[in-house]
C-alpha cells in the first residue's frame, strides 16, 4: 500500500507541479502500479485503454484535462481488488474498473481545479512579501503549492477507489452476470474512442488519408500473418 501511495503522490505531482517527465501518463503510471500490485500485465492493459482517451486534450492556459493519472491508478487498483475481493475474472474486473474509474474519476478535474484555486489565494500574498524582501518565505510559499497538488492527487485517487471498491464488492454477482459476456470486446472500446479522439483533434494535412493508409497496411499485414 505504501508503494501505491508513493506512486500516487509522485505521479500526481509529475502531472503538473514537478519535473513533468510524464510518468503521470496512464500507460506509465498504470504499468508501474501494476508492478507494485503484482499484476504487471493488467497494469499495461489499463494503460493501453486509457492512454489515448484524453491525450489530445491539451493543458493549455486555464484549460484542465480530466485527471487521467489518478483514473489510471484508481482503475488498476480496482481491477486488482475486483479479482481479489470480488473473485471476478481478470477481463471482467478490468472492464468494470475502467467504467467505474472513468465515471468516478470525473471528480478529479474538480479537485485539480481546487488546488489551483488554493494556489491563486496563496499568491495574493506575493506582492507584500516581495515588497518586504521576504524571499525565503516567497520560496516556501511556492513550494507549498506542491502540498496542494499532492493532496488533491490523493483525494482524486480515494474518490475512485473507496466507492469503487464498495460497488465492486456489493455488486459482484450482478457484475459477473451482466458484464462478463461484454468484457472481452468492451475493454477494446475505450482505446478505440481514444483513437477517434486523437483523429478528431489532429489538424494536419491529409490526416484522413494517412490514417486510412496506416489502417489498411496493418490490417493487410495482420491478415497475411494470421
Amino acid at each position: 500500500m505504501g508503494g501505491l501511495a508513493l506512486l500516487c503522490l509522485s505521479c500526481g505531482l509529475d502531472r503538473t507541479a514537478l519535473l513533468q517527465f510524464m510518468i503521470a501518463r496512464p500507460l506509465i503510471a498504470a504499468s508501474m502500479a501494476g508492478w507494485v500490485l503484482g499484476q504487471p500485465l493488467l497494469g499495461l492493459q489499463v494503460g493501453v485503454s486509457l492512454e489515448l482517451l484524453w491525450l489530445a486534450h491539451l493543458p493549455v492556459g486555464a484549460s484542465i484535462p480530466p485527471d487521467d493519472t489518478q483514473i489510471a491508478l484508481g482503475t488498476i487498483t480496482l481491477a486488482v481488488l475486483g479479482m481479489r475481493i470480488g473473485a471476478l475474472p481478470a477481463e471482467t474486473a478490468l472492464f468494470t474498473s475502467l467504467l467505474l474509474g472513468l465515471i468516478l474519476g470525473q471528480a478529479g478535474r474538480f479537485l485539480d481545479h481546487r488546488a489551483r484555486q488554493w494556489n491563486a489565494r496563496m499568491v495574493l500574498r506575493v506582492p507584500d512579501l516581495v515588497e518586504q524582501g521576504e524571499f525565503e518565505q516567497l520560496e516556501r510559499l511556492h513550494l507549498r503549492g506542491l502540498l496542494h497538488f499532492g493532496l488533491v492527487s490523493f483525494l482524486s485517487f480515494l474518490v475512485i477507489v473507496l466507492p469503487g471498491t464498495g460497488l465492486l464488492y456489493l455488486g459482484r454477482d450482478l457484475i459477473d452476470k451482466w458484464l462478463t459476456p461484454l468484457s472481452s470486446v468492451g475493454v477494446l472500446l475505450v482505446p478505440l474512442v481514444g483513437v477517434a479522439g486523437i483523429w478528431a483533434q489532429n489538424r494536419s494535412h491529409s490526416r484522413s488519408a494517412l490514417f486510412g493508409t496506416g489502417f489498411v497496411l496493418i490490417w493487410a499485414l495482420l491478415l497475411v500473418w494470421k
Partner: protein
Amino acid sequence: MSETQRQLDRWTLMKVWIRLFFLQASWNYETMQGLGVAYAVLPGLRRLYPPQELPGVVADYSQYFNTHPYMTPSVLGTALKLQQEMAQGVTIGISPRQYSEMVMAPYAAIGDALFWGGLRPLAAVLSLYLAFLGVLWAPLVFFVAQAIPHLWMIGMGFYFGLRHGLLSVERIQQWKLSDKALQCKQVTMFALGGFGALLAVTGLEKANVSGIWAPGVLLSIAPMVYLMRRGVTPMLMVVVLVGAWACLYWSLTNVVFKPL
C-alpha cells in the same frame, strides 16, 4: 557590490536550472507560472543585486507569466542574460520583462504544438503497439521517447538563452519546431491508423468474427470523429459505445440467436 562584479557564475546557473523543474509547483489562475518564475530566477537575482535593490527586480518576475513549461528555460535564460547586462550597467533596448511578455505566447504555441500535440501522441502510439502486444517495457519506451526531447529542450533552451541572449529567438526559429510538430502529427496519424486496425482485428476475433471485416470498424470510427469534433466528450462517447455494444450483444444473443 560594484557593477562589474555582477556576474552569474556556473553554480548559480545550475541552481536556477534545477529550480526550473519546480516551475509549476504553485500554478494558479492569477499569475499562472508567475511565482514559479520568481522562485526559479531568485538565485540568479540574488547574485546580481544587493538586497536593497532586489524587491524591485523580483516584482517584475513574480507577475503573470505563462508559456509551455519546456520552453520556459529558453525565455528565462535570455531574460537572465539581459538582467545581467542591466545589472552591469549596459544599455539594452528591451527589458527582461518586456522580452518575456513578447515571447511567452509564441513560445507557448510552439511548445504546445510540438510537445503536447506532436511528440507526445507519436511516442504514445508507438509505445501502444508494443504494450498491446504485451511487451512489458513499452512504458519505458514511452518514457525515454519523451524524456530525451524534454531534457534537451530544458538544457539547450536555457544554454542558448544565456549564451545568445536575444539572438536565441533566431536560433529557435532555425530549428523549425513548428514544421517538426506538423511532421510528428502526420506520422502519428499513420501510426494511429495502424493501431486502429490492430484494435479492430483483435476485437472482431474476440467476438468470433473474422478480421477481414475490420474496415467496418473503421467506418464506425468516422462518426465518432465527427461527433468528437462537434464537442462530444470522450467520456460520453465511451458510455454511448459501451451502451450500444451491450444492446447489440443482448439483442443478438436473446433475440436473433435465441436458443429454441
